[in-house]
Every structure is written in structure tokens, then in C-alpha cells.
């Protein structure tokens, strides 16, 4: 079933399809492709069908329907669903069953969405390929030899392969946009504070945001509308009205000015940081031409501090992670080693066994960055540069509506290609990371295929809390092209 969420809603309202039939069909698709893709850590077949039947009954009674009624959705496994295991892709949380719903899950349930399963991800959302999951490696539906990106690779692959029309991911440094780009779908990272983090297993608390995956911009708008808004349980969630994104998404932005940062592109004699692939660059430049043809002004801008964003990110995010993950010591919860001699040994062994290599690497990095004698040179310096990166964007958005560039330097890379070289892996997030540091919003939409048939993502970045404009601008491009209609043959 290749339908979008909007189409599924339409078919149900006309009586062509029931929620149960929809759910059955997606469950069948999951069964068919999961052995190849491994997008899901858990599929809640019984629960999904039960929800579907309840929604159908509701419709028969003539009750008011939620805005995602009968639409299945995959949930990244760092997001807590009451009564369902939330492993965060880690052995550490193999047995963790949260007694509460994340705020976004409460919203989805209120919207009558069908929670179909928990999708695979890099352990504690740390990674760019989903290879750091303690459980399985998810494959890219466009090429099973390649990764779907990460850390929300399971969610991206599930939507790309039509295992679910929608999915939720989290984005700390690009973990929604990068896999969306590599899987040829739409992925949106909301502004920091737009979506409550309550119930998200934390990685980098000042950077984490939850956001939608969908086939197109309209579906993304619909899902964002459901999950956005203030939550008194998250003091960093901002109390601002939530626009009706899905309604306004079709109206184009007039006198559009698009900023193109010179740092994101190869210059004569100097390759862009991270090594921008020529095919990717061509697709992005073609996309800019589409905007030009729609009357947009393309303006070269500069984000002078963006080359430092990866370095800043790997200090700020890891510092926060080293503290956020300290609770997993086998004392109150989390994996506990079977054999140990005393408390300290128990903590050491439990953490040693429960965490994977990348998580350990980041905990060590973050601990180091915060340690006395180093904190000034690393963590505090990183905070200063973070402010400069924010100011870059403030200045840029004073002269353009959005910033456009590639989502990733390359299309999907091979499984195992970068696992031995963490730095190369980190650089695959070079274009996405600065948005998290600055707290702005960003979206990746499909804008082409490589000669070998791999999707290419176009990233559009907007000022904080301008998701509405961001979606409308993304939709302008989408209407002119059909990249978002391409589906991989799994």
C-alpha cells in the first residue's frame, strides 16, 4: 500500500477503506519486507489491529475522528510508549518498559493514529547509519547493501519501504533529516522547544527534538500539527500557538528569498567541508533552479562558523550524554551484570556490558570535555562557538527566508563503510548539525536520484518557529517535481 497518510484519511472518509484493512495491509507489507530491511525492533500486531477496530467502531458510531484516524505510524525506539519496551537500541534497556507515554505518543493517541511498532535506531540515537543498534542492522530499501542513515534509520526505512505511511524520529544532529535524505522521503526537525521532549530517552538534551517522517510535505505538516505544542512537563517546550500546518502548506511564499551558504558547496580549488559529492551538488543546484523558475531570488550567504559545527556538536552533545546516561548503572534500572564484587564493580560491569562501543566513546568524550582542567578549553569553548553559530543564522535569516543546501554530502553509503572511521561517520552530518546547535528548524525533501538510483536529499533550514513557512516553501518545490512519488522496489 503506497498511499500517503492524506490519501488513507480520504479513503476512510469515503468508506473505501477501513482502519482495520489499512492496518492489515501494512502489517502484511511489514511481514513481507522485514526479513530484508529489519526496520522494526517490535511490531505490535495485536495492539495495532485492536486500535484499528476501535477506530472503525468510532467512525461507525459517528464520533468525531482524530486528525490521523486509522493511519499507522512507526515509533523510533527512543520514544516511550506505555507498556511497550523502549530499548533505545541498547542492550542496557533490553527490559525497560516505560510506565508512561511520551507527550508525542499521547498526542498521537488523541489523534487516533495507530501505533504499529517500534523502529530500530542507533543505540541511544548515537550514530548516522543505524549500525550502532545493539539488535540489528537496518538496510536501505533503495539498496540493501547500504545503510538507511541514522540514527532514526528504522523509521526512515519503514516509511520509504511503505511499511508505514508515517514515522516519528528524533533529531539531535541530523538524525531525522539525514536518513530521510538517504531514504528518499521527507523528514522534518522542528525548532527546539516546538515539540515536547517528555518521554524521549535523552541523548543531548539541549539539541534533541522529535519530528515526522513522511512521503511528502503535506503528510509531514499533518503529523507535525499533531505533535507540536506546549507541554507543562517539559519546561523547554515553548508556549506558542501551533499553526494549522496542513491547511496552509499549499499556499506558496511570495517574494521568496533563498539563502545559499557558500560553505556548503565546493568552491573553485576548495572542496566543501565533508566532501560534497558532485552528483549531490548537481541535484541541489537543479533544485535551486526550480525555485528560481518559481520567482525566488537566490542569494549567496555565509555561515562563517559552520565548519566548526561538527567539533562543537561532539563536545556539547557528548557532555550532555555523559550525564544523561549516567543513570544506567544497574542500580535502579538498566542492565545489571550477573557477577560482580561490590557496588563499584557492579556499576562498572553493568555499564561495560550494557553499552556499545560508540556510546562508550561518546560518554568518555563528554566526560573528558567536562572534566576539571579541560572544561574551559572544550565544553565552555564549545558553548561560545555555539553562540557564534546561532548568530550566523540570525544574520542569515535577516536577509533570506530560508537556507537551502544538501542534506548530506553523499547519498547512502555502504554498510560497514564508515564503522571503522568514526570521524568520517561524524562528517556525514556536517550540513545538518548546525541547525540543532542553533535551535532552528529544518526539513529534508527528496530532490533526485544518483546514477545508481540512490535518493538525494535537499535540506531547507528556517528560523526558529517558522515551520509553517518552511513547509510551504518545501511544498512549492514538491509540486513542481515528482521525486517524492518514487518508491524503492524492495
Amino acid at each position: 500500500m503506497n498511499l500517503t497518510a492524506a490519501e488513507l484519511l480520504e479513503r476512510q472518509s469515503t468508506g473505501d477503506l477501513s482502519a482495520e484493512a489499512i492496518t492489515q495491509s501494512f502489517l502484511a507489507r511489514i511481514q513481507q519486507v522485514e526479513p530484508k530491511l529489519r526496520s522494526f525492533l517490535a511490531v505490535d500486531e495485536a495492539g495495532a489491529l485492536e486500535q484499528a477496530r476501535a477506530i472503525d467502531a468510532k467512525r461507525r458510531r459517528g464520533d468525531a475522528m482524530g486528525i490521523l484516524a486509522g493511519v499507522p505510524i512507526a515509533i523510533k525506539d527512543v520514544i516511550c510508549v506505555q507498556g511497550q519496551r523502549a530499548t533505545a537500541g541498547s542492550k542496557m534497556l533490553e527490559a525497560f518498559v516505560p510506565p508512561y507515554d511520551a507527550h508525542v505518543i499521547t498526542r498521537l493517541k488523541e489523534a487516533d493514529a495507530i501505533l504499529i511498532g517500534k523502529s530500530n535506531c542507533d543505540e541511544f540515537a548515537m550514530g548516522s547509519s543505524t549500525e550502532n543498534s545493539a539488535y540489528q542492522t537496518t538496510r536501505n530499501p533503495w539498496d540493501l547493501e547500504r545503510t538507511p542513515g541514522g540514527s532514526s534509520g528504522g523509521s526512515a526505512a519503514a516509511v520509504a519501504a511503505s511499511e508505514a505511511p508515517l514515522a516519528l524520529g528524533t533529531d539531535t544532529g541530523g538524525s531525522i533529516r539525514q536518513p530521510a535524505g538517504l531514504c528518499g522521503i521527507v523528514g522534518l526537525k522542528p525548532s527546539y522547544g516546538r515539540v515536547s521532549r517528555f518521554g524521549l530517552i535523552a541523548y543531548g538534551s539541549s539539541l534533541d527534538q522529535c519530528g515526522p517522517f513522511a512521503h511528502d510535505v503535506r503528510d509531514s505538516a499533518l503529523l507535525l500539527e499533531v505533535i507540536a505544542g506546549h507541554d507543562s512537563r517539559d519546561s523547554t517546550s515553548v508556549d506558542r500557538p501551533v499553526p494549522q500546518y496542513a491547511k496552509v502548506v499549499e499556499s506558496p511564499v511570495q517574494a521568496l528569498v533563498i539563502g545559499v551558504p557558500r560553505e556548503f558547496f565546493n568552491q573553485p580549488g576548495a572542496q566543501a567541508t565533508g566532501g560534497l559529492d558532485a552528483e549531490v551538488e548537481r541535484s541541489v543546484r537543479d533544485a535551486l533552479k526550480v525555485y528560481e523558475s518559481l520567482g525566488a531570488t537566490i542569494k549567496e550567504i555565509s555561515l562563517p562558523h559552520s565548519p566548526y559545527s561538527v567539533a562543537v556538536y561532539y563536545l556539547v552533545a557528548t557532555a550532555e550524554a555523559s550525564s544523561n546516561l549516567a543513570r544506567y548503572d544497574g542500580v535502579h534500572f538498566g542492565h545489571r551484570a550477573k557477577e560482580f564484587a561490590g557496588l563499584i564493580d557492579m556499576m562498572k560491569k553493568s555499564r561495560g556490558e550494557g553499552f556499545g562501543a560508540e556510546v562508550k566513546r561518546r560518554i568518555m568524550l563528554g566526560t573528558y570535555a567536562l572534566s576539571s582542567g579541560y572544561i574551559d578549553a572544550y565544553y565552555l569553548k564549545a558553548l561560545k562557538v555555539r553562540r557564534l553559530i546561532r548568530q550566523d543564522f540570525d544574520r542569515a535569516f535577516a536577509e533570506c527566508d530560508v537556507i537551502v543546501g544538501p542534506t548530506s554530502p553523499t547519498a547512502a553509503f555502504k554498510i560497514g563503510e564508515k564503522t571503522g572511521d568514526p570521524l568520517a561517520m561524524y562528517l556525514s552530518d556536517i550540513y545538518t548539525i548546525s541547525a540543532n546547535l542553533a535551535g532552528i528548524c529544518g526539513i529534508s525533501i527528496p530532490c533526485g536520484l544518483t546514477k545508481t538510483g540512490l535518493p538525494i536529499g535537499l535540506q531547507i533550514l528556517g528560523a526558529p518557529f517558522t515551520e509553517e513557512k518552511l513547509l510551504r516553501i518545501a511544498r512549492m518545490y514538491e509540486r513542481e517535481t515528482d521525486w517524492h512519488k518514487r518508491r524503492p522496489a524492495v
Partner: protein
Amino acid sequence: MTTHRIIIGLEVHVQLLTKTKLFCGCSTQFGLPPNSATCPICCGLPGTLPVMNREAFHLALKAATALNCKIASFTKWDRKNYYYPDLPKNYQISQYDLPFSSEGWLEIELPSGPKKVGIIRAHLEEDAGKMLHDEHAGKSDSLVDLNRTGTPLLEIVSKPAIDTPEEAKAYLEELRLLLREIGVSDCEMQEGSLRCDANINIHVPQADGTFIATPIIEIKNLNSFRGVERALKYEAERQANELRRSLDAGAWVVDSSRAKAFRDYAVIQVLTQRGSEVAKATAGWDERTGRTEIQRRKEEASDYRYFPEPDLVPVKVDAAILDKVRTELGELPAAQKARLQSQYGIPAYDAGILSRQGRAFVAYFEAVVKTCGDAKEACNWTINDLLSTLNERQLDINVCPLSPQGLGELIVEIKSTGLNKQRAREVYTAMLDGLTAKQAIDKLGFKVVGDEAQLLELVRRAIAANPKAVADFKKGKLKAADAIKGFVMRETKGMANTEVVQRLVMEELNRG
């Protein structure tokens, strides 16, 4: 030779009187079954987030304002990272470099007069849980009770400006009075709602006018104010002995070139033989043995890797909030004491006693004055008789069996009849059972003899019967008149009007 100087700084943690914890909705009630006052947030479950309790912040503002602190217009939260099983997140949410208040003072009453003790800072933080070690029946299980986890604590750090163990006790008493009066904390040391760590070292004078400083010892496990005083006394002596021994044995050395200024004199820190400063240490106080036990030398300071708490937004405090806090605070003990002195003309010492009993007691005193019009007598009766009654019967002033009006009437009665103090006390005691002053006097059958002719007759008899006293009086021993008065009192079973007797005795003695 002058004796050593003692340098004391106190770190006090008080639990704020909020109904719920600092970052979640769990109850802060004391004595609930283990782990019953917990939720996913204070247990630190993955995905949960803290939300600041506004009431806790408000109480903290009240305390800091009452402690004359500067209140920051912008304050933030920080994480203090350390691994301990009673800390489920393995970090404590506290305040590090931008506490909400700093640079205050607390005025304490000393025999030498009032003294302002400087306060470095007061900040908010969450409490940890409690470890319960169960070692009976061959097991050695450790259990954790998380009821206390997340309880709001205010940490108040004094300057090292407390000079004696007695002063430390006075500081704690004054602090407790203040915080109870403004409803910030109940300050019950037994229940852990007031905890105190004391930092102490001594400065020993040298012949050249400089001082040698011993390493600072932080005493923990202090569970009563008296314990604080005893521990500090013991520790000061112990440090003096240790210094003497260590210098004699050559274990510690002094390098005069390393003198540093402290207050108005120069101080030299003792060094190890290797030339590094002798490390600070922690000590535990053993109430039973009356000794401090050095637990560990802190060779290197713990690294708590403080960083800003990303889950909480900074707090802004504006002038409107501070105005509200000041209005709510009302009259603080120090200001109250000054007012009692000037308004009622009572001595500072007595005003201090009144003030220390709390607002309700002061209100009682003021009501007595209103009834009887005699502040001096009202003060005597309340701080002597009434206070001992309350202490003996372990009663709160709010449930005092004698109303302030009743006590006021008693004073009026005494003044009008000249009832002597001893008899007046009997009346007072009877009034505690619910009688009015008049009823009590009737019931006791006290009939004051005020008839001048009758009393004159008795005075003359007394003079006749005590020639020696009369002779002594004539020689200038004015005290001898007491024997005459005593005779009259005995004859009237203590019911003679003391004022009249006094006047008549003087008239008669001076006449002949």
C-alpha cells in the same frame, strides 16, 4: 602567650516547607513508607524531565531576602555529577556559578553584643535518597529509599567568620528562628530538615606576630546544635594538639615566606615534608564518644563536572516578585527586637529573649502590655513565669492556658493591691487552671491588708520588738529595715500591701 584563633564556616541545608518535591509532584511528608513518595521523575526514569516547583523557589527567595542576600535577576540550574546509589540519575540538580542569591548576613546576639555573620551564598538544590543498610540475618543487603530524593533543599553557606563554637550555636539558633518565623522550613534536625556541616581550622600565633593555620576539617554527621558546639570545641583542641605534635615530629613544616593575608594578619599554611599544603579532610562527629574521627584527606578535590542543566530553563526574578516577597516577610526577628526595645523601653537582653520565642510569643507580650499598661512588668512575667510554665508543660504559646488579657489583669491587680511577688505567683498558678485574677485571689482567700491604721499599729509593734534592727538602721544599715518589714509580713501572713508597709516603715524609722 595568646591563644589560637578559631575559624569556623557553616554549611547549612534546610528542607523547604513545600507540599511537593522540587521537580515533581511527589509528597515531601516525613516518615512515609519507603519509596511510597516516588514517581518516574524523581526516580530518574528514562525520558522523564524535571519541572521547577515555583513554591520552592518562592520560599527560597523569602529566606535569602530575610538573610539580606543579593538576589540575582537571572539564575540557572546546573548538574553536579557523581555516582552514588541514593542518587538515581547519578547527578544532582543544583546551582553552581550563578546561584539565585549571594552576599548576605545574619545578625546574632553574643554576650559581647550583636554580630553580623556574613553569608557567601544561598542556593537551591534537590536532595538525594537514603541508603538503608540491612546487615542482619547474615545478609548484607543495601536498600535505597527514594522518598527524600528530589526534596527541595536550601544550602546556606556562611563566611568563615564564626569565631567560637558558642557563636556557631548562636548562629544556628538564630537561623532556625528566622526560617521558622518566615515559614520557610521547620528546621527539625532530628528529621533531617536542617543539616549542618562545619568547616573549622585554627590560627596559632607565633612570636613574630604571624599565625600558623591548621588544615581545614569539614565535620559531618552533626545532629544537634549542642553537638555542633561540642564537636567544634573538641576539634579546635584536637587541631592545636595535632599541630604541636606534627611540628615537633617534623611531619609538618612551616615556610614563613608563604604567608598570606587573612583579615588583618598574616597566616602561614602548614606543609607536608614534600612542601605541599596539608590536604583538607572530612571528619565525622561521634556524639557518644564526644570525638571527631578524621575520615579521609581530600588529596584532590572531587570533580563534579558541573554544567548547565539543559532540561530546565533559567529563572528570571523581577522587582515585582521581590516586592511581594518583602511584603510577605513581615517583621523579621532583628527588626522586631529593635522595635521592642524602642517602643517599650525594655532592655536589649529582654527584647532578645522575647524575639527569640517567635512572633506568637511577641504578640502575646504586646497584648499583655495593652491590658496592663506596664511593659516592664509584662516583660518580667512573660519571659520569667510564662516561659517557664510553657517549658515545663511543653506547651506552645498558641495553646497557653492563660490568656494575655488574664495575665495583664493579674499585673493590674498586683499593682493596685500591692500583693507581694510570692502570693502573686500563687494567684498566677491558680489562673493557669482557668480562673480570673479576682477569682483566684478570692479562692486563695488572699485579702490584702491595706488599712493604714492597722498596718501602722503593726509597724510600731515591729519596731518595739526589734531594737537591734532599729539601732543598725540608725547607724546607716538601710537593709536592717527588712527585718521590720518581715515582721509585718509574717503577722499578716504575707497579705500586707507592700507599698504601704514600705512607706510606713520608713516614716516610723526616720521619725524616732
